[in-house]
């Protein structure tokens, strides 16, 4: 097999794989020369679009009077549902439940009802406020509980995962605890908001520049909405100013509005919502209400789990199906449940349709698993870490390696990983010191928690696990690299270029990284599910190997040597006894009419998933990690500080350790923010009131742990044949932030002698922490 020697690397070139290569755009970032969509020079005559939105959460639209909008200064026209030439639907999963603009009713406060097109963005924005909409107000339901009470439907089919007889096991168990956990959502707060810029062309053609993780979907949506074939639509993205899942489906709206307007007026049209509209009109991480019922023995070993996961999906399905599925896939986190039943409840609500966000429902599942661990620990008076270890997945030999979805855990490294972190972070001694501190200290209480994460890698939509690439070698020896993945800061382009540099044994600088475009690689999957380098790296390697094979064949024939004596090394090619430069070989190959362009392809092996049966192998492999966090809590105000965090994370054999470390650090902080200060707050009318950084608080530099040590598990190597035996890194470390949440919980628990689970809801704002402290104090 071609990739058998996959972990061998030669590091004599610059930018070799498995070295700390800096982000390819770093110099452009720091000088402001990196172009984002809004930085593209606008052709003369560019128009600007802005969305007019609903001002109620739920109601019938009786009449939309846009006369004042149309007569406002600078306005060229408006777009409503009547202007959609093709299908008025941008549902990413084909459920036909997400109109570009609704015609009969509005289903959330801030829902786009129409767009204004004007000569300037400011004119469009001002005019969008002037609509006069007549509604017949209907009652609304904002969260899963209200929606359940009001008899709202699911937005998509729920999932059930079941193994063993949880009902019987719950009844007969020594201990049993039921509880409810509320987990808040999260706004992506990418620094660059949504934007799309459409340029009309001849025939049905339109080119859309935008900020998206999923150019192929944007292409298909634009074609669908315009009623033209996909081959008329080109979608380009050079880079995003952050994505985090928020640009996996949510850009569809902006792309189609810009494209419809561009074709209608035959002028370039740009649309860029302001931050408030970006936050109110586009989806976020799903909030969940989890009802859990857990049975365990006197040692804290789990016997059975029954969990119900109700999610605030918003008014349409969007990606809520796979998101709520993934919550169930990770409701075990790292723990074996001998008997288990997990059900999802993807509730329709009168809020913006929630969407993908780093972890894709997985983090909510993991938080629920960790809550059950806490419940057991406080009920038995034990250290939660001991309960965690008691319940870790085992292996085939002990029969404790089967997940609730019947996939075997075959690559478990939890015991070693946790053991090393426990030692390196000095967990036991610090926990002891904290217990002593808390016994003495009346106001400041401390907590420490060491939490694991096990995260399944692959899209659960199996067909998404494919990727393409396109590599040209020009006759001067320079290389043009393109693949279907998108760059949102994660360094995907850097890693893929390293892989190509390695395959051809040329310096990284020789490889030109180019924008992602549907013109070069078709039918791509979203750059999501942490899959970017796994999929696109392999696809690029495939193309590079094809080119290399052709060059080897040419060299062997031309120099009359055996192909196995042709060796690429450090910008040179050894051909028998002769060494020629890569450039010379390419030049000679060109003259000899060798095809120097190749399209690569990859699909993930081994995976399959039967959703109806709840059985299969949805994941190619698992990534693992662990974090130990210590916090101090002021029990007079609920304020807290993260004193120390130590992380040990598994990325297999890292393609680029420094970029991977950056992903781990950033994901941890983002996960910490989700569970601490990032609070989405809707008022009773259904209006999101935390809709910009002034009111929605993501972590700052000063919120970082006072001591922060992040390491990669250098000994780890993917058991599966992934690209260079690396592992995905985007999402798994997000869940390391849960260590902070659990540490806060311990600090709160200290006020009741650790005998009562504090049942902190997320996010654990200072308010929630103080109110939990006061609740526990009052109860004890």
């Amino acid at each position: 097999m071609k990739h058998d020697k996959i972990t061998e690397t030669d590091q004599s070139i610059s930018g070799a794989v498995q070295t700390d290569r800096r982000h390819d755009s770093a110099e452009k970032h720091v000088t402001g020369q990196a172009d984002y969509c809004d930085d593209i020079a606008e052709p003369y005559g560019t128009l600007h679009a802005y969305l007019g939105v609903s001002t109620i959460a739920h109601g019938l639209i009786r009449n939309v009077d846009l006369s004042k909008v149309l007569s406002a200064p600078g306005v060229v026209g408006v777009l409503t549902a009547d202007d959609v030439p093709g299908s008025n639907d941008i549902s990413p999963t084909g459920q036909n439940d997400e109109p570009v603009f609704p015609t009969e009713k509005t289903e959330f406060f801030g829902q786009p009802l129409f767009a204004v097109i004007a000569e300037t963005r400011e004119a469009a924005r001002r005019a969008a406020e002037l609509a006069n909409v007549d509604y017949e107000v209907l009652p609304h339901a904002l969260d899963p509980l209200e929606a359940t009470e009001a008899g709202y439907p699911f937005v998509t089919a729920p999932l059930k995962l079941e193994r063993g007889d949880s009902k019987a096991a719950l009844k007969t168990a020594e201990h049993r605890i039921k509880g409810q956990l509320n987990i808040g959502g999260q706004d992506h707060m990418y620094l660059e908001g949504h934007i799309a810029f459409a340029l009309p062309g001849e025939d049905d053609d339109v080119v859309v520049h935008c900020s998206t993780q999923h150019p192929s979907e944007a292409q298909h949506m634009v074609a669908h909405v315009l009623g033209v074939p996909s081959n008329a639509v080109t979608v380009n993205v050079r880079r995003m100013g952050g994505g985090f899942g928020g640009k996996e489906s949510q850009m569809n709206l902006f792309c189609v509005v810009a494209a419809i307007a561009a074709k209608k007026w035959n002028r370039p049209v740009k649309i860029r919502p302001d931050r408030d509209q970006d936050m109110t009109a586009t989806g976020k991480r799903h909030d969940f209400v989890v009802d859990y019922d857990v049975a365990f023995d006197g040692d804290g070993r789990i016997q059975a789990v029954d969990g119900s996961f109700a999610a605030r999906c918003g008014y349409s399905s969007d990606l809520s199906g796979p998101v709520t599925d993934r919550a169930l896939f990770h409701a075990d986190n790292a723990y074996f449940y001998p008997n288990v039943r997990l059900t999802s409840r993807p509730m329709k609500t009168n809020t913006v349709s929630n969407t993908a966000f780093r972890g894709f429902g997985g983090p909510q599942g993991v938080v629920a698993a960790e809550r059950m661990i806490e419940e057991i620990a406080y009920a038995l008076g034990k250290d939660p870490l001991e309960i965690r270890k008691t319940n870790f997945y085992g292996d085939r030999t002990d029969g404790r390696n089967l997940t609730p979805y019947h996939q075997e855990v075959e690559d478990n490294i939890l015991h070693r990983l946790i053991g090393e972190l426990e030692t390196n972070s000095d967990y036991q001694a610090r926990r002891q010191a904290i217990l002593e501190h808390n016994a003495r200290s009346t106001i400041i209480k401390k907590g420490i928690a060491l939490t694991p994460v096990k995260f399944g890698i692959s899209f659960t939509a199996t067909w998404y696990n494919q990727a393409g690439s396109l590599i040209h070698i020009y006759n001067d020896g320079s290389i043009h690299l393109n693949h279907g993945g998108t760059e949102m800061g994660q360094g995907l382009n850097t890693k893929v270029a390293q892989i190509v540099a390695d395959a051809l044994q040329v310096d990284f600088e020789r490889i030109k990284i180019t924008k992602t475009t549907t013109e070069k690689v078709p039918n791509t999957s979203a750059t999501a599910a942490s899959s970017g380098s796994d999929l696109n790296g392999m696809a690029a390697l495939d193309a590079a190997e094809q080119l290399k094979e052709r060059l080897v064949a040419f060299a062997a024939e031309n120099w009359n040597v055996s192909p196995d004596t042709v060796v690429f090394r450090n910008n040179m090619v050894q051909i028998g006894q002769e060494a020629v430069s890569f450039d010379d070989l390419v030049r000679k190959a060109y003259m000899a009419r060798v095809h120097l362009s190749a399209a690569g392809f990859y699909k993930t092996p081994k995976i399959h998933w039967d959703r109806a049966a709840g059985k299969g192998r949805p994941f190619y492999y698992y990534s693992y990690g662990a974090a130990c966090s210590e916090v101090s809590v002021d029990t007079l105000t609920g304020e807290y500080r993260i004193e120390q965090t130590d992380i040990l994370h598994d990325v297999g054999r890292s393609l680029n350790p420094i970029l991977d470390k950056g992903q781990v650090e950033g994901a941890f902080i983002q996960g910490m923010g989700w569970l601490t200060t990032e609070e989405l707050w809707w008022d009773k009318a259904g209006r999101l009131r935390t809709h910009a950084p002034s009111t929605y608080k993501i972590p700052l530099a000063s919120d970082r742990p006072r001591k922060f040590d992040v390491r990669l598990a250098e000994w780890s190597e993917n058991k599966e044949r992934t690209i260079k035996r690396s592992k995905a890194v985007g999402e798994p470390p997000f869940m390391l932030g849960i260590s902070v949440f659990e540490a806060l919980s311990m600090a709160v628990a200290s006020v009741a002698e650790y005998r009562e689970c504090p049942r902190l809801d997320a996010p654990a704002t200072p308010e929630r922490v103080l109110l939990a402290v006061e609740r526990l104090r009052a109860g004890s």
Partner: protein
Amino acid sequence: MTHRNEIRILLNGADVAVRDVPADRTLLDYIRLERRLTGTKEGCAEGDCGACTVLVGRLHDGVLKYETVNACIRFLASLNACHIVTIEHLRGEGGGLHPIQQAMVDFHGSQCGFCTPGFVMSLYALWMENPSPTETEVETAIQGNLCRCTGYQPIVAAAMAANQYGTPANDFLTLEREEITQRLSALDDGRRIVTSPKDNRAIIPANVEDLAEVLTETPEATIIAGATDVGLWVTKFMKPISPAVFINHLNDLKSIKLTDTSLEIGAGVTYSEAQDAIRDAFPHLEAYWDRIAGQQVRNMGTIGGNIANGSPIGDTPPVLIALGATITLRRGQEQRSLPLEDFFIEYGKQDRASGEFVETIVIPRPISGQLNAAYKISKRRDEDISSVAAGFSVTVENGLITDCRIAFGGMAGTPQRAKAAEAALRGQPWNAATFAAAGKALETDFAPLTDWRASAQYRTSVARNLMQRFFLSMDDQTAEPAELLSA
């Protein structure tokens, strides 16, 4: 003297005169849309993310000083005779990357890169003033910069190492200082500037006397100092602000007089400008001051503006009311003084007559036996608006509380004194029981609201607990709260 209709600035290396500047034209829109300097980004358009950070150099008594500002809420009309430095202008000694840029590259301080130019500008300003900062100083300098990718660790590391990449003495702005000073001096001709068009007019008075005159002529004018609030009226609410009178440049409103008995601050003094004097006169406000907004907003926002806009959640009114501050208002040549607490009548209503402006704030210095504290409770520690803010000034003689002033923000429609709690303290012995009783009395003082920052229940609990916090921290200076948490 006739007015002129032209804002004159130095934009990076070029002298630029802009005619007909609309009052509500932001610096960010000007540089991105009109100058196509696209390195500076818009992240939030409300001064909270820092992606639009640029440097503004201005002459203060002839001395050129550069500060970071948020270009998104800074109005172009407020920048006459300023040097605006954007990311495009930065360069290193040999013409390559600037030391800050090189450090950011080497420490992997960028991922998506969108926030990066803003961080570079903030770190550049820090390095110019303080090339070898502590970690806390770095964190303070980038309180106003959000990064969603990196988790900040590499950015802080880059800032700490920046001095190994170059010294401010050799920096291009240092080397060009004299030349820039001269060019900026030449831009200011001492005339009032009035821009057209009429329905979007900016007025830049020549001095404070001229301001008094302008406001007598146009009492309906929007007075804009730092624009950290009015900026949002434009960017968020698209409210008309014309005619807009800009006062941030008026040296007459920038006086800081520290005497034995008081600190007198001109209404145009920014938080940054006041910082040293505040620290010297009121040591208990030192940490609190660093938690007002972020660095860019502290460089722009003024104490006068924080008072005059009447917000119930401004950071300075509670602590200034507790200290017994008074303010002077002026209309034309008439001046009057009143206690700061009386300025706030009810939510949205202040004791400021048409044509009046806040001229000075006078804060009495603590007397012997006076114990002072300031607390700010917010969802996020830095760069957040308070859920509850409190100022305590309690005078203790021979174990008895002889006088006290306690004021809260976030507990009512205005910043307010806790009269019942004060009554429960006055004349009582200094002990925990007294403060517990005062905490209980707070319930008759306030009935706070629930909103997205905090619930009524939380505000009530925290306010009560702060009474205890004050007692504990004053009773035993070594008591545990110490460096932790609420400033």
